[in-house]
């Protein structure tokens, strides 16, 4: 990797740390995308990409996005969990379009989208 990129990273890091200082840490959201074979076959990678795109475009800092394996609800894949504080919501059949809406409205705006939740 070119040295220039690591210099770029230094700036990115300083800006991210400055933003973090003015943010409320308790509102930190954690998004989990299920990425078992079933999820991948249903399009979970593109769902993940849409989530990252939306975070970047809407400039939503402080969101942790991770992946996990099959959670046994393969018929609802792609599955995405959103946890903010103690409240966890599981969404099913999350297309890239739905993913973008979930990031904007739930993660960004604090309003979960009821009609896409999986009710167990």
């Amino acid at each position, binding site marked *: *990797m070119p040295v220039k*990129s*690591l210099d*770029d*990273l*230094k700036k*990115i*890091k300083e*800006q*991210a*740390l400055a933003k*973090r200082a003015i943010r409320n840490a308790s509102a930190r959201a954690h998004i989990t*995308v299920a*990425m*078992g*074979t079933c999820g*991948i*076959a249903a399009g979970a*990678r*593109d769902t*993940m*990409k849409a989530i*990252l*795109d939306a*975070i*970047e475009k*809407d*400039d*939503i*800092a*402080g*969101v*942790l*996005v*991770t*992946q996990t*394996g*099959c*959670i*046994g609800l*393969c018929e609802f894949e792609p599955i995405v969990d959103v946890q903010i504080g103690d409240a966890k919501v599981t969404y099913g059949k999350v297309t890239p379009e739905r993913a973008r809406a979930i990031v904007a409205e739930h993660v960004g705006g604090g309003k979960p989208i009821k009609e896409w939740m999986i009710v167990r």
Partner: protein
Amino acid sequence: MLRELALHILDIAENSLNAGATLVTIEVIEDARADRLTLRVADNGRGMDAELARRVADPFTTTRTTRRVGLGLPFLKQAAEQCNGSLAIDSAQGVGTTITATFQYSHIDRMPLGDLSGTILSLAVGYPQADFVFRREIGDKRLEIDTRPIKAELGSVALSEPSVIKFLKEMLE
């Protein structure tokens, strides 16, 4: 079932991470002169004993506990063999696993590589506890991306921060 080789790579890497890997090396070597495409995913996970390594390309073998059928590797094996290639599994308990799939590069039935950068981005951000080395060779051209120096530079700043996502996407382009 998985229509891109990049999705198969993601699927194999998921197995690596489920096996506790902390470093996953992904190589994609396009050698048009030798008419060969090689994909390799090497990890330092817990590895498999000889018996499991032998059975792992069988659809009725899976590590998942939620279902008893695993279709990732069997489909990749079939895809490789249909294109005059093969699937090799090299694994040692406590050391790690290396999966190598080869294809005749120009074979009419060879699956497209697909969105490799999407696969690498997804893995690098999605598994902050692990590191990834991505090596791509196209003829004489080489690209290598290693998440270790990136994370060392970022310190406590996560890869899922907006400006870092942008940086990673540009680097993978």
